[in-house]
């Protein structure tokens, strides 16, 4: 079963994403900021990361940059943010994201991209 890490400081957002992903049969773990996410990523094995940008202690960019330095942890990452500015897109990809999405995300939209990124067939 595929395992996904949701990184967001807002508990409602984590629950919402979790509900969508669990309903599609994935298992999910959560982290509230980049440092906790790194701890979980380095000790676990994830097939995908869904990462918010603005978080306390360590933001999403920094998390992805540090994660991408670890050769064993190159699973795809979706960066989600409230910001739609062009600059953020560029920064996200530069940090190691595979996809940038603007919140709030609709369930269908999320599932399409999640499946695509993990190399599964789209429903």
């Amino acid at each position, binding site marked *: 079963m595929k395992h996904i890490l949701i990184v967001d400081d807002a*508990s409602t957002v984590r629950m919402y994403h979790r509900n969508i992903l669990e309903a599609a049969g994935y298992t999910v773990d959560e*982290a*509230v*900021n*980049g*440092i906790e996410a790194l*701890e979980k990523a380095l000790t676990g094995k994830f097939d995908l990361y869904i990462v918010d940008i603005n978080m306390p*202690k*360590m933001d999403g960019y*920094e998390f992805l940059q540090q994660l991408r330095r670890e050769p064993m942890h190159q699973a795809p990452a979706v960066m989600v943010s409230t910001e739609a500015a062009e600059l953020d897109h560029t920064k996200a990809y530069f940090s190691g994201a595979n996809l940038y999405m603007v919140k709030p995300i609709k369930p269908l939209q999320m599932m399409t991209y999640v499946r695509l990124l993990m190399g599964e067939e789209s429903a």
Partner: protein
Amino acid sequence: MSDHNISEHDFDKFAEFFYRKTGIKFEPSKRYFVDKRLTERMRETGSDSFRHYFTTLRFQASGEELQRLTNLLTVNETYFMREDYQFRCLIDSMLPDVISRHDPRKPIRIWCIPSSSGEEPYSIAMYLLEEWEGINDWDVELIASDIDTQILATAQKGIYSERSIRNVPASWKRRYFKSVPGGHQVSEDIRDAVEFTRINLSEPADVRSMRNIDIIFCRNLLIYFDDKSRKVAAEYMYEAMSPGGYICLGHTESMGRISPLYRVKKFPAAIVYQRPLEAK
């Protein structure tokens, strides 16, 4: 009239708040354990409802109530060899890395804060002597600090109950303990090897004296600090450490609630935090 009933939604709200603050997550299966302690604190603080108590918990300026509750919700018994996977990590991973770039004329410096009643620094001393081959080639200074001078005196005496030394291997017990009235006393050479000092981790003048530390054990201390003081304490420890030095926190603690200064480092036996080598 007071209503000490805690609904499912109250529990969820509390669990999320507590997770955000401490990194400790209580699943619904822990409800009985958590509810019991919440009810106890609600009664003692004279709160007339969960809502009232939750407000105190969130907004009390001193953070005292959150500290009390954290105390109740975390088991903090100290004994020899507690969380010894970190000592394993010290021997197998942290020390080999530290000596690979350490000046051989200078001692390795290990700092335990809080010293508490001494179980942790003495456990580390025994680990170093028994398990680390490098002890033949390197000098190690072991410093144990606490804010409480009384507990430091207890630590220096080094007398412990049977229960406290229950996890010490039998051969180590024979080598490093002797029976005395009141329990088991740590041998003199081990007691002599640890330097006990009084340090308040929130006091700049105290911390300024600590320098060139290679490895810090700071377990189950910062969790009881408020957000502001734990961030400042992490900054002082950063100052006390050599670049590339390591810090170990308690197993329920995460630097993710404290400070972004350190790098997460994964070793086979444990996750620890490192002051970046290249940082100035």
